[in-house]
């Protein structure tokens, strides 16, 4: 990363093979070596940028159109990132224009997908379309023809409003999770049966950590498809719907 002569790491450095945690970093006096301070600073910078970076809506829309899912685009009542971060309540509500748009677009499909920037637009930009592709491969009948909504400055619960306005039986929200230093691009997927404004988090199931060093697209797709099928047939999601997809599929390996 730099040309400086690195200080030696600690003699237990081979343990790094067992954990992504920053172990055996070495030290100079009590302090981190320069190369480790800079590595931490770079990771922090990447995560900070991931929070601030706006979703490239045009690119995402083009990718979805190419895949055969021309999306609708909506916006929460949080006009900008600064407001979004301070006012989670606004991130859960649609603007009047967005609500009116969806009201004219009622869908016959039971499931609607929301791709939302959340706290990491990077996550949705990189992983949402590949995940949708994996879902279609996993179960073409369920995932080939359904509406997709791209949502900006969105919290998870904005999916409830979107689902309600579209009259959907089920909403799948793919959203950027809070970026960590080791995972600035982690995608979370929240599943809610009978979405309506005011649903609580206890009424959702979640599949988290979808990213290249986390849960793979195929593994996530298997789990999501199982939960959607089970949720539709049992008419519920949340704490009463336990994820039993591991019983139906091989163990979900992280690559």
């Amino acid at each position, binding site marked *: 990363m730099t040309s400086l002569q690195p200080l030696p790491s600690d003699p*237990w450095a081979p*343990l790094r093979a067992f954990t*992504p*945690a920053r172990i055996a970093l070495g030290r100079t006096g009590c*302090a981190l070596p320069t190369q480790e301070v800079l590595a*931490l*600073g770079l990771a922090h910078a990447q995560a900070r940028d991931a*929070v601030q970076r706006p979703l490239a809506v045009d690119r995402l829309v083009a990718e979805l159109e190419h895949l055969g899912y021309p999306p609708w685009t909506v916006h929460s009542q949080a006009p900008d990132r600064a407001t979004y971060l301070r*006012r989670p309540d606004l991130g859960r509500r649609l603007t009047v224009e967005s609500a009116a748009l969806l009201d004219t677009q009622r869908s016959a499909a039971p499931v609607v997908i929301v791709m939302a920037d959340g706290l990491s637009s990077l996550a949705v930009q990189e992983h949402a379309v590949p995940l949708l592709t994996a879902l279609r491969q996993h179960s073409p009948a369920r995932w080939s023809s359904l509406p997709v909504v791209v949502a900006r400055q969105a919290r998870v619960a904005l999916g409830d409003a979107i689902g309600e306005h579209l009259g959907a039986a089920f909403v799948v929200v793919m959203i950027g999770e809070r970026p960590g230093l080791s995972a600035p691009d982690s995608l979370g997927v929240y599943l809610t049966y009978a979405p309506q404004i005011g649903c609580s988090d206890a009424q959702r199931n979640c599949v988290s950590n979808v990213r290249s060093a986390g849960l793979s697209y195929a593994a996530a797709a298997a789990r999501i498809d199982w939960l959607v099928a089970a949720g539709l047939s049992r008419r519920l999601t949340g704490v009463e719907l336990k994820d039993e997809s591991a019983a139906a599929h091989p163990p979900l390996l992280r690559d």
Partner: protein
Amino acid sequence: MSFTHTVDGTQWRFNSLRELLATASPERSGDALAGLMAASAVQRMAARLALADLPLRHFLLEAVVPYEQDDVTRLIIDTHDAAAFAAVAHLTVGEFRNWLLSPAADTQALTRLAPGLTPEMVAGVSKLMRHQDLIAVARKCSVVTRFRNTQGLPGRMGVRLQPNHPTDDLQGVAAAVLDGLLYGAGDAVIGINPASDDLPTFIGLWQMLDEVITRFEIPTQSCVLTHVTQQLRGMAAGAPVDLVFQSVGGTQQTNTSFGITLALLAEAQAAARSLQRGTVGTQVMYFETGQGSALSANAHHGVDQQTLEARAYGVARHFDPFLTNSVVGFIGPEYLYDGKQIIRAGLEDHFCGKLLGVPLGVDVCHTTHAEADFDDMDTLLTLLGTAGVNFIMGVPGADDVMLNYQSTSFHDALYLRDLLGLRRAPEFERWLERMQLTDGAGRLLPAKAGHALLAAASALSAA
């Protein structure tokens, strides 16, 4: 009851104690989100001026959350020690601040007073205090606790070794435990936040930590930070549970949202004590709290988040904890927006906890979506060290790879020890020296080839 104060001919009115406390609070995003924050800087100061004139006795007459509706209020009122309170019963909040900062309020006097103070009194006086006041008074407080070692002694500070792993992999956790021990951390507790939610995984973690502690005869304690009901199940299944963890909040409704009752906490405390796993004491509880948790659970009753945080310490105090930890920057910018708000909140929390007689440590931390960075963390860490914080976190490289937030590192703890001469718990200090990991002054020594912990590391690598 309503309160008024006149500034330059303008009369400011506050309709309840709840409103007075909220308006007097320093600016923070969570109170703004709840619609409780002062509308102007002068209104805030008018509230502080009115608060300064309020007799401390008034806090026993007007509850911020109704007694009939809330078991935390009932706990606070029903267990209040009037005899201890007598020493300051004649004071107003403003006079109380003066007394706290006077030489009369020495360690002994503050220790005697603690059971006579309610969380609301302590929160109230903190709103009249600057950073230097919060530090100076907290430093005079002493809350000493014991399980397998002694925490909170003057001039000492503990570190929780936090070896989290994104999939609870036992080798991965063990690797981080060894890293922490080799860096001289882990006297407060070796405490894991598990990623999964199933009992067999927890039991594996408890057993592994117990093996490490037993094999190397480490005078410390372990904890798996899962829901208290899972820990009860673990104990029933014979798992080696040292400390029982639970998040607690300052209202009954918040605790309901956490899936707990006060009776459940009492049951867990009794169960852990019955195992008799402590060697120098029987304090078995580890609580975590954080400003904003009540608002997050929609359970704040119109009370500002700092007052509710102090009430959470009221809950903790009742269960005689070994450790209580304010996870100050974890909750996010909608509650504490930036470094300034996080730093202020960390100092308030530590002050309030200590004054109430709670063994307060602080997870000096931030999330990447808050307007804060490692410079802010260094500032708060250093201030809390001077304030005599009971313990801090030790996370490898300050980067928690499971919870996705930034805390303090083993290196940060070494920095603070070196800067301020803060020693480890005496039992753990002796163990490190015996293991030749530190010298006589507590300074870290390079681990020699063939050291028992390095051998354990090699064995782990070969496994």
